[in-house]
């Protein structure tokens, strides 16, 4: 029973190992990866379902040692929800990679690395231990770096370097946070830490640890001012990868902030939350305005992620049950929307004469790509939060929680920020589908990437816009669960 929580991590891990043996048959490797991720999604769904039914997290203790001595893997509602979200998007990422014309998806290491990325991300969401968080994050970083370095884009290697170095910095912060917390409290188990921090909030290094963890997660979610590597990285990565990076991988920091404010540092949360609101608003404006000024669809979407993460941070920062639920809905919906949009940008680049999503190249191409146009427009509406898409539900819930928390000024700023989203998405849409081609003699390539994956994602976006109830219920339950850190601690440490 308790081994159930291992499956979401072990399935992609073993899948990656086996995929290595299929190196000579990249096609089969891809199909295998699809099967592995499909199985992983099923397992994670079952895990989440079990957790929701029993109301108890599923905890696995490594080596049979009880926490805090053994390494704990904890499948609670938050971890399970984010893991499922990530794996669904990663599954569709594989679908996209299978239909992609890129050279890099034929690279023998592509699919094993993709599965390692899945392992790292899932593990980071499900681990109950700060050191393991470090390990899984490193796994994620290494896979992400290589996946970007092999990009067809000539800036791939440069972007990969940037990402790797900034991630080293994040790793250093995280390791130092591990160290300072261990010195102060003698444990790295999250539940145990939470309990001990609550009992002894005056440890001299506590503030340092909080600052270090903040910095780590800010880098992970590319929060201003640690964002500078992100647009390069998300633009240069292969489409199938950048669609993952800018949607689910950036949510690692969001997850971290949620754990910090609702579990580890409940007493100290007020300051963190204020900071998150400020950073969020800066992100909304900085990201939104930068996105308006970009010359490349992918880059625009990367900056848009900055802004959208800003919305989520503000939700976490308000810290009310409504706002946290809204932030979670926003997190899930943004992952689906952004993945779809990046895939569409990649699709256009794959059909363009020069493989690029720069406006100079893709302007006017839309006339010949009507299906992509419909998908892109719905995605644009969703990003800007216009009904009947899931993006509207996110925006509505977030504004609602802000009004409830009487944060009218911030809500007003967010409303202005959401107009910026509308401006850049519509401008991109108009350029690609309405404006004439820059050079009409240039012909489209007859075939490019397949549209199945973004079409499925946009379908989900519409479905979650009209039938929002299940996701809202799930995030409500998650929020109630996050409001009871004592239950998390008891569940992991057993009796207390």
């Amino acid at each position, binding site marked *: 029973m308790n081994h159930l929580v291992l499956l979401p991590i072990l399935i992609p891990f073993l899948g990656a190992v086996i995929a290595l043996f299929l190196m000579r048959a990249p096609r089969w490797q891809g199909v295998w990866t699809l099967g592995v991720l499909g199985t992983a999604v099923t397992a994670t769904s079952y895990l989440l379902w079990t957790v929701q039914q029993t109301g108890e997290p599923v905890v696995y203790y490594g080596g049979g040692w009880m926490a805090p001595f053994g390494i704990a893997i904890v499948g609670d509602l938050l971890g399970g929800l984010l893991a499922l979200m990530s794996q669904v998007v990663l599954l569709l990422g594989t679908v996209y990679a299978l239909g992609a014309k890129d050279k890099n998806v034929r690279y023998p290491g592509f699919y094993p690395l993709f599965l390692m990325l899945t392992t790292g991300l899932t593990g980071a969401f499900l681990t109950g231990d700060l050191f393991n968080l470090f390990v899984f994050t490193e796994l994620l970083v290494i896979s992400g770096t290589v996946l970007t370095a092999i990009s067809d884009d000539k800036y791939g290697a440069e972007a990969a370097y940037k990402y790797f170095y900034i991630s080293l910095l994040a790793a250093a912060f995280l390791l130092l946070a591990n160290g300072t917390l261990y010195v102060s409290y003698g444990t790295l188990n999250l539940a145990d830490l939470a309990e001990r921090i609550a009992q002894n909030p005056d440890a001299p290094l506590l503030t340092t640890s909080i600052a270090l963890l903040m910095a780590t997660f800010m880098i992970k979610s590319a929060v201003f001012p640690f964002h500078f590597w992100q647009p390069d990285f998300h633009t240069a990565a292969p489409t199938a990868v950048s669609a993952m990076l800018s949607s689910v991988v950036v949510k690692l920091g969001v997850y971290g902030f949620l754990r910090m404010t609702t579990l580890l540092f409940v007493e100290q949360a007020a300051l963190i939350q204020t900071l998150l609101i400020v950073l969020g608003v800066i992100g909304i404006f900085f990201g939104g305005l930068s996105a308006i000024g970009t010359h490349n669809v992918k880059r625009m979407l990367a900056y848009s992620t900055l802004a959208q993460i800003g919305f989520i941070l503000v939700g976490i920062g308000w810290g009310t049950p409504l706002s946290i639920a809204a932030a979670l809905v926003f997190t899930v919906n943004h992952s689906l929307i952004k993945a779809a949009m990046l895939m569409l940008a990649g699709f256009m680049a794959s059909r363009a004469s020069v493989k690029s999503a720069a406006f100079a190249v893709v302007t006017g191409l839309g006339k010949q790509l009507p299906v992509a146009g419909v998908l892109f427009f719905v995605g644009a*509406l969703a990003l*800007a939060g*216009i*009904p*009947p898409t899931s993006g*509207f539900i996110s925006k*509505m*819930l977030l*504004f*609602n929680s802000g*009004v*409830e928390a009487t944060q*009218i000024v911030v*809500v*007003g700023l967010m*409303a202005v920020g*959401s*107009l910026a989203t*509308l*401006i850049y998405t*519509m*401008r991109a849409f*108009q350029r690609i589908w*309405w*404006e004439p081609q820059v050079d009409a003699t240039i012909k489209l390539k007859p075939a490019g990437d397949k549209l199945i994956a973004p079409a499925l994602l946009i379908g989900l976006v519409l479905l979650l816009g009209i039938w*929002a*109830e299940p996701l*809202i*219920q799930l995030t*409500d339950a998650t929020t109630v669960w996050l409001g009871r850190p004592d239950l998390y601690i008891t569940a992991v440490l057993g009796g207390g």
Partner: protein
Amino acid sequence: MGILSLLTFFPLIGVVALLIMRKASDNALKWVAISTAIATFGMSLVVLGQFETGVAGLQLIDRFEWIEAWGIEYHMGIDGISILMVLLTTFIMMLAIPSSWNAISSQVRQYYIFMLLLEVGMLGVFLAQDLFLFYIFWEFTLVPMYFLIGIWGGKNRVYAAIKFFLYTMAGSLLMLLGILYMGITNDTFSLPDLISGRAAFADVQNWLFLGFAIAFAIKVPIFPFHSWLPDAHTEAPTAGSVILAGVLLKMGTYGFIRFNLPLFPEASVEFAPAIAVLAIIGIIYGAIVSFAQKDVKKLVAYSSISHLGFVMLGIFSLNNQGIQGAILQGVNHGISSGALFFIVGVLYEQRHTREIKEYGGVWKAMPVFSALTLIVTLSSMGLPGLNGFVGEFTILLGSMGAESLGASPWIFTAFATTGVILAAVYLLWMFQRVFMGPLDNPANEKLRDLNSGELAIMLSFMLFIIWIGVAPSGFFSLMDGTVSKLVADIGSVLLAGQ
């Protein structure tokens, strides 16, 4: 599923048919769209048949839980305020769709899909009784209109499309915040429940009023929120302008009557003089700017600002004549300026210019067309015996006796009346320059008169121009019950304030 939901989503059948008919000819697609629009109009007549006049509250209600966790309902209903708007929507749509027969030659399928989607959105706006549902329909109307302007519009279409989209979005965000606030204080988004529980947000009702008012003011548009309108109207294809002027602008005035007045009565009373002043400015400003236009379509567009000033003045007279006049004038403006945009379209299709100086003496080439245009022009300037007169007269009467407009409301009436005179000036002058005089531009000699389709559309407009002008009582009796109750409700507030 009740009749109202059926009516609202009925055009979707046409949309599906258009999507399925992959290999059909353009003409077949046009017929599908036209028959859908006619059938939808027929259904709205069925609704009219089932509608009980004199009842104040909502009728034919369709209501169930939608997102239970957030108290959001699917709630449709109709009353005296919406019935005329619904009929106007289906009527104008039924005329606008065939009017594009020749004008739209590219991407025909998409064009009619967007037209029918727009109809769904507009009907939903007028029938939704849950604020969340209303907001969704409200936003949804933007999308098809954005495409209608952006793809099939004139030279500057892309600019006009995004301007239209952004302006309306900016306004509706404020409304969204207002809706959310009331949802939190009252745990419901249902309009009737919010009205009965309005005490819960009475303390901030001035702010909420402003949030809603700005959203609606942009839509109407009230001076100084009007600057998107000339662009959108001029760049939109003919049918788009017809719908924009005919129905979409009425969503704004409807919003004031449906939401602002009953939800925030004290604030309505408080802001009434200010809005009436803006309405007067709009009336005179719109008229003067119309006077200066060299482009017929722009002239008609600016005249909308002036005419909708009357509607706003009527609404914020906050009495029975004022509001009933405003609703009827909304319908009248829909018919008259819808017809005027159609007329401009007929000329533009043949001459591909809208410059007034390019025309002159058109009567000689197109006598039937010109005669009918004269009637429409006279209706637009409010000649007795035609529909415009009834609406404007009732509004002026209402404003004259408006307690909400301070001690001497007649000043407002006096200023508004100048608008009637100005309308006569700019409309007749336009008519004179385009239709009268010698036929001295050789390009105009080849103009052909109306074909049977165009004639049918013009005669349909004509029917209501004269019907409302001669026998308006049937139209007033449709709204009387609801408006009287609304006015009584506000009246008690006015009394309490004194």
